[in-house]
């Protein structure tokens, strides 16, 4: 398939995943902010921004933060700009995706563009839910109306890469702020502010219910970290996401073989092996911050190698094949 087409599909998917991710975590933190005592809210939005690799918010007021992250046009990554970028990428490959997919993304784009930017009280939650649902609908349509060929694999690749990076960043920042050795004791009652924050972290990854099925509602931070990092079955756990990523890469390698593919498969394969065979104790020994950084770096490396192998490869190397 044309390199440009693969690139557009990849980015379309990354941007949409990003928009959905932002919507999810803003929704959770907006709720937490209402429930938590004031001191627990200090620095909340700063941490959210940091986990999204954004500059700290210009103002501290909730309204200003929300409008910046949801509708900000200057911000590189507000929900609006992310959806707009996803649509721009889709627009250029309209013939390669199904018309159902295009129409859904187009609808979502028009919905966020016409959302009311000023009324943050009732509307913002509806807005965030609409973004989430819009993205889910798009993924459903992608699975059921598009051939699962090379293009579809690039969509999976973009989505899982973005998801792995986001989850790792979020886990790292949350851990730094809230993890206490002492917390392993029973003093973590359901009333503690920290307890709610850990539930919030799970909710950010829509993982609360899935987590409870495994660990019951006893929220042990160590279990939460383990679940979000190493669970083999939950679609937002980093291990699961990297498995998906590796599957997509293998499929692409079969469809578009060439020795340029090997490098990226090696990096992704190594990351996958690490996550499959590591235990949480080993992770703790290495340190969460270090592990998350390693995951993010590997993801960035995978991204660059994919681009080099399939899109921006030098002409000379391609002629030798």
């Amino acid at each position, binding site marked *: *398939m*044309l*390199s*440009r087409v*693969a690139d557009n599909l990849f980015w379309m998917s990354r941007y949409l995943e990003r928009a959905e991710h932002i919507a999810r975590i803003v929704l959770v933190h907006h709720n937490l902010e209402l429930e938590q005592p004031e001191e627990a809210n200090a620095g909340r939005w700063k941490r959210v921004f940091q986990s999204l690799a954004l500059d700290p918010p210009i103002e501290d007021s909730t309204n200003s933060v929300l409008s910046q992250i949801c509708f900000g046009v200057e911000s590189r990554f507000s929900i609006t700009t992310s959806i707009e970028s996803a649509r721009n990428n889709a*627009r*250029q490959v*309209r*013939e390669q995706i199904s*018309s159902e997919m295009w129409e859904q993304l187009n609808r979502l784009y028009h919905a966020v563009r016409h959302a009311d930017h000023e009324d943050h009280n009732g509307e913002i939650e509806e807005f965030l839910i609409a973004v989430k649902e819009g993205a889910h609908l798009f993924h459903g349509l992608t699975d059921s109306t598009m051939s699962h060929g*090379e293009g579809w694999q690039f969509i999976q690749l973009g989505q899982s890469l973005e998801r792995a990076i986001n989850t790792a960043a979020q886990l790292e920042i949350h851990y730094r702020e809230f993890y206490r050795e002492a917390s392993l004791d029973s003093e973590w009652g359901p009333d503690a502010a920290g307890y709610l924050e850990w539930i919030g972290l799970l909710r950010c990854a829509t993982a609360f219910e899935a987590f409870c099925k495994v660990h019951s509602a006893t929220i042990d931070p160590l279990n939460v970290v383990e679940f979000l990092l190493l669970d083999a079955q939950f679609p937002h756990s980093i291990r699961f996401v990297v498995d998906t990523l590796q599957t997509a890469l293998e499929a*692409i390698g079969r*469809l*578009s*073989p*060439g020795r340029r593919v090997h490098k990226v498969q090696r990096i992704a394969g190594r990351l996958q092996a690490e996550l499959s065979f590591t235990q949480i104790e080993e992770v703790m020994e290495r340190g969460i911050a270090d592990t998350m950084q390693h995951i993010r770096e590997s993801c960035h490396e995978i991204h660059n190698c994919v681009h080099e192998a*399939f*899109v921006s*490869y030098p*002409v000379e190397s*391609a*002629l030798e*094949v």
Partner: protein
Amino acid sequence: MLTQAPFQNYWYGTPWDEMFYPGGEPRAHYEPLMRVLENLPAEEIRQKKQAADLSFLHQGITFTVYGKSEGTERIFPHDLIPRILTAAEWSKIELGLTQRITALNEFLRDLYHEQRILNDGVVPRELIASCPHFRREMRGVAVPRGAYVAVAGTDLVRLPTGEFAVLEDNLRVPSGVSYMLTSRQVMKRVFPSLLRECQVRPIDHYGAALSSTLRSLAPEGRPDPVIVLLTPGVFNSAYFEHAYLARQMGIELVEGRDLLVHDNIVYMRTTSGLRRIDVIYRRIDDDFIDSLVFRSDTILGVPGLFNAYRAGNVTLANAVGTGVADDKAVYAYVPAIIKYYLDQDAILPNVETYLLSDERERSYVLENLDKLVVKAVGESGGYGMLVGPHSTKADQEEFRRRILANPRNYIAQPTLALSCAPCLVEGESIEPRHVDLRPYILFGEKVTIVPGGLTRVALRRGSLVVNSSQGGGSKDTWVLQN
């Protein structure tokens, strides 16, 4: 019978009515259609019209209107009542167009090589030298099979005598063929039994014919050529058509940035490496195809493409520089061109044309601006045109000024009484509207013309302008088996 429902507002006796004799009796080949229309309740006609429009909208068959703000994608207005041509009418058109495209390709080959026709004084040398679409870069460049124009769309009009004449040739990147094809698809759903009863010749093989024409033009030694369609991109008004044709032919739809030239070979960048390209069906104007040779302020094309083309490593369809042959002033010489190369008289006549660079003709035209149609020679799509009888004094003064400033840039023609065909107006009553006909001609190993074409309609009452950008629409064209 003629005063019955849908035709009650119809008026007969326009200079040439496609469907009716001047007295109001339908022509024989329109009788089955007449029977169907008469027995169709107005409500059902409305429903069929709605179903057809919806089908166009859902398929995204739209075009973009330039010069308006973003988002002016419109459906191409489509008229439900088909325009019907008899087998005899069509066979004359087919012969005439074949003759014309053959002569024009000879003419282009000659212009870019020996220039015999200029040396013999049949076409004035100044006329060619002053044509902006004459590409000196093409002198001496060999073109496979001499097929400079591989795809042409020639606009025909029917004169009051019932005879077809050529209004203009489109030899650069003619568009509209997707409307012809999709319109037939819709008609099959709307009037299935009528199509069968009339024995309408099929046109669905256009994609296959285009594909084999392009294949036949591949550079030598490339038995299994890779063919692509080069589009300027999603913002182009005809993007729908580009994507549609690429899908019909099963070829890759590429933009300039997907291609690169290395050692005079053109490649496209794919996920599995570079893939060599042999034939480019380009839907980009000459000016934009190679920023190293033509306009440098563009990123639509491919730097180095022209050199690869000149080296014979890739075929461009159409060739570079075909615009010189559809220059509206050169048009006046086409009958002479046919005579010169083929020693035949033109089967399809031209429309009488005044060249404004000629002093005598110019003064006649300037005195009769209110009766004539004036056209800029390099423009298409109905832009840059004065329709005398429908113009204001101010328009005429504006054109007088422009003509005097650059007479070579304009021609004039008598205001033609285009033939009329019945059209559904506002979904209910049927009224006559002016129509033309644009068949599509393919020139490769052989000449192929799918039977039919795009019948364009001037939907506004009395209007003579059929271009989609100027409020025109289209209707399906049926060529009968016998």
